[in-house]
C-alpha cells in the first residue's frame, strides 16, 4: 500500500508526466474519433497504421530536436536548423545528380556539410562570443541562399535507390526513418548519460561562469553541441529529401527550427538552460506530429494547426514560468480567501 503511494507520488512528480499525459490525451481523442486508430496491420512484410505513420513522419523532427535539446541546455538556441536541412538535402542531391551510384558519397556530403554548418555556428557562439540567436540567424538568412546556389534554384529529383532506402525503405517491418531516429536517440543518450558530457552541459547551462572557473573548457563543450546540432539537422535533411524524393532549397525544412524548439520546450527542457531531458524531447516531437495528425483526421481545417500550436506554446511557457505560476497561486489563494470571508460573513452575519 505504502509502496503504491510512493510510486504514485514518484510518478506525479516525474518531469515526463506532463508530456506523456498530453500524448495520451491526443491518442485518446484520436481513438474516440476513430476506434481503429491504434490498429496496425501487416501488409506484404510492412507494418501499416496510424501510429507507424506518426512515428515515420516524426522521425526528422525527433532527430533535429535531440541536437536542439543539447544546444538549449547550454543556454543557447539554433534557429538555422531548417536552413541546414535544406543545404544537406541539396548537397546530397548535387552529388547524386552527377553520379547516381555514389550513394555513400552523397550521405557523406550531406553529413559533412551539416557538420560544417554546425561548426560555423559553434565557432561564432563559443569562440567569438556572439549571442546564439544572432549567430545562428546569419546561417538562417544565408543558408537557404546557399542551398539554392547548390541546386541552381531548381527542385532536384532524387532517384538513387540506395539513397531513397533511408526515407521510404523498410527494415524488419518498420520504416527505416524510425530505425534511424531510434539509433540517433540511443547514441545521443549514451554519449550524454554514460559520459561526463551530460554533467558538463548541465553545469554550463546552470552557470557558465562557474563552470569555466571550475576548470571546465566550456568553449569546447558549447562548440561541440552546435556541431552535433548541425549533424542532426543534416541527418534530418537526408530523411526529408529521401522521403519526398527531391531536394528543394527553398522549402525543405521550412519552419522546422520552430517545431524543434517547440518539441524541446514541450518535453520539459528549460529554455533558461541547465535542465534537459532527451526522453522528454522525443515525447515532445511525437506530440507535435500527433497533434498535426489529429487536427487533420478530426477535420479541423489544416490551417488551424498553427493556431493550436500557438496556444500550446503559450500554455507550456506559462506553466514553465515561475512568475505565471506565482500569479496563478495568488489568484487561487485570493479566491479561497474570498470564499472563506464569505462563509465567515454567512456564519456570523452580525459582525459586519
Amino acid at each position, binding site marked *: 500500500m505504502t509502496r503504491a503511494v510512493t510510486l504514485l507520488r514518484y510518478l506525479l512528480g516525474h518531469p515526463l508526466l506532463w508530456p506523456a499525459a498530453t500524448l495520451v490525451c491526443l491518442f485518446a481523442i484520436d481513438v474516440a474519433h476513430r476506434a481503429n486508430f491504434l490498429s496496425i496491420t501487416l501488409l506484404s512484410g510492412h507494418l501499416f497504421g496510424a501510429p507507424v505513420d506518426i512515428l515515420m513522419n516524426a522521425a526528422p523532427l525527433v532527430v533535429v530536436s535531440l541536437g536542439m535539446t543539447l544546444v538549449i541546455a547550454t543556454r543557447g*538556441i539554433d534557429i538555422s536548423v531548417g536552413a541546414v536541412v535544406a543545404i544537406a538535402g541539396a548537397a546530397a542531391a548535387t552529388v547524386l545528380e552527377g553520379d547516381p551510384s555514389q550513394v555513400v558519397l552523397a550521405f557523406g556530403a550531406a553529413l559533412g556539410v551539416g557538420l560544417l554548418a554546425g561548426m560555423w555556428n559553434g565557432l*561564432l557562439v563559443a569562440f*567569438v*562570443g*556572439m*549571442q546564439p*540567436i*544572432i*549567430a545562428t*540567424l*546569419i*546561417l*538562417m*538568412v*544565408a*543558408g*537557404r*541562399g*546557399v542551398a*539554392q*546556389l547548390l541546386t541552381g*534554384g531548381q527542385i532536384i529529383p532524387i532517384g538513387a535507390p540506395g539513397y531513397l532506402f533511408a526515407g521510404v525503405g523498410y527494415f524488419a517491418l518498420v520504416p527505416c526513418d524510425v530505425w534511424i531516429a531510434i539509433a540517433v536517440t540511443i547514441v545521443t543518450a549514451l554519449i550524454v548519460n554514460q559520459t561526463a558530457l551530460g554533467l558538463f552541459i548541465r553545469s554550463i547551462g546552470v552557470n557558465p*561562469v562557474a563552470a569555466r572557473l571550475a576548470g571546465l573548457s566550456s568553449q569546447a563543450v558549447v562548440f561541440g553541441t552546435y556541431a552535433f546540432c548541425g549533424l542532426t539537422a543534416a541527418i534530418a535533411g537526408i530523411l526529408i529529401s529521401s522521403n519526398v524524393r527531391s531536394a528543394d*532549397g527553398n522549402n525543405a525544412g521550412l519552419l522546422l527550427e*520552430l517545431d524543434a*524548439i517547440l518539441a524541446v*520546450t514541450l518535453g520539459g527542457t528549460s*529554455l533558461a538552460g541547465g535542465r534537459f531531458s532527451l526522453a522528454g524531447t522525443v515525447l515532445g516531437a511525437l506530440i507535435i506530429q500527433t497533434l498535426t495528425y489529429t487536427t487533420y483526421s478530426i477535420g479541423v*481545417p489544416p*490551417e*488551424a*494547426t*498553427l*493556431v*493550436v*500550436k*500557438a*496556444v500550446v*506554446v*503559450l500554455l507550456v*511557457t*506559462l506553466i514553465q*514560468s*515561475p*512568475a*505565471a505560476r506565482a*500569479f496563478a497561486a495568488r489568484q487561487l489563494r485570493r479566491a479561497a480567501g474570498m470564499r472563506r470571508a464569505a462563509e465567515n460573513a454567512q456564519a456570523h452575519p452580525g459582525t459586519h
Partner: protein
Amino acid sequence: MNRTLPHFAPLAACRRGAARFGDPRVLPIAVTVLLFIALFGFGSVMYTGFFSLQVLFGLLVDNAFLLIVAIGMTFVIISGGIDLSVGAVVALATILCAVMSEKWHWPVAVIVPVVLLCGALYGASMGALIHYFRLQPFIITLAGMFLARGTCFLITTQSIQINSADFHALSQFNVTIGSGSLNTGALIALAMLAAGIVIAHLTRFGRNVYAIGGNERSALLMGLPVARTKIGVYALSGFCSALGGVVFTLYVLSGYGLQAQGMELDAIAATVIGGTLLTGGVGYVIGSVFGVGILGTIQTLITFDGTLSSWWTRIVIGALLCAFCLLQRASERHAARRKSAGTGMGAPMTGGTRARNAAPLDQAKLAAAPPRA
C-alpha cells in the same frame, strides 16, 4: 587650453572625430552609411541609369513597408527584446484590410485606424505577457507569429483582390519631386521615420527605452516605468507592423496569408546592419534606414546586373550580417579593454554594453571614498 597651441585645434578636432568614430555607438552606423554610399557609387559606376533620383526614390518606394517594420523592430531591439511576429502581423493586416474593404465594404478612413489599433493591441498583449510573466520575448513573439499566421489562414486561404476605388486612388497617388516621384507608401514611411526619430530622442518614452535596454534592473531601481515602457515598445512594434501591412496592401492591392514570409529576418538584419546592438541600449532609428537602404540597394544591383540569381541576395545579406556582428563584437571588446586600461577587469561578462565611462568613474569613486567603519 585655448591659449596653448591654438593652431592645433583642427588636429584635435580630427582626433576627437576619430575617437568618436571608434565609439561602439557611432562606429557601426558610420560604417553602414559609408557602405550604403559605396554600394550606390558602385552601382552608378557599373550600370548606366543607376545614378538617378528615381532609383533612389525607387529604393524607398519598394522598401517602404520594410522600413516601417524595421523602425518598430529598432525600438524593440534597443529595449533588449526581439519581435519575430512582425512578418505574420503584416500578412494579417493585409488580410484584414482586404476583408474589411471587399466583404464588409467599409471606407478606408475606418479600415486603416481599426487595423492599426488591432496591431498595437496585439503587440501590447505580447508585451504584457513578456513583462508580467517574465517570459522570453523570443518564444512569446514566436507564438504570436504562429497565432497571426494561423488567424490569416482561418480567415481565408485564398488571396483576396482589392477592387475598392478608394484603395486604388490611394495607391496611385504620387508626389513628384525633381526628376523622381514618391507614392503614398513612401510618404507614410517618411512620416513614420520622422515620428520614430522624435519618439526615440525627444520623448520621455524614448529615453526610457534606451535606459531599459542598457540595464533593466537599473531602470527599475531608478523608478522608471519599466512595465509601461516595455509594453509600449511591443505595442509600437505591432503598430508599425500593421502600418507596414497597410502600406504593403497599397503596394500589391490584395490580402494574402503567405505575404511577407521571412520579413522578420529582413527587419532584424536591417536593424543590425544599421548599427543597433542586439544586447540592447544602443542604436539609432536613422541607422535602420540605411540598413534597409543597403538591403534594397543589393536587390536593385542584382536586378540591374541581370545575370546574378536572386539567391545571391540572401547570401550577401547573411555575409553582411555576419560582418556587422563581428564588427560589433570587436568594438565592444575594444571598448571594454579601454575601459579597464588593459587589465581585462572591466570586460563585460555576457557582452553587456555599459556606458563608456562608467567603469573608470566607479573605480575612481571607490578609490576616493573613505573606508567604511
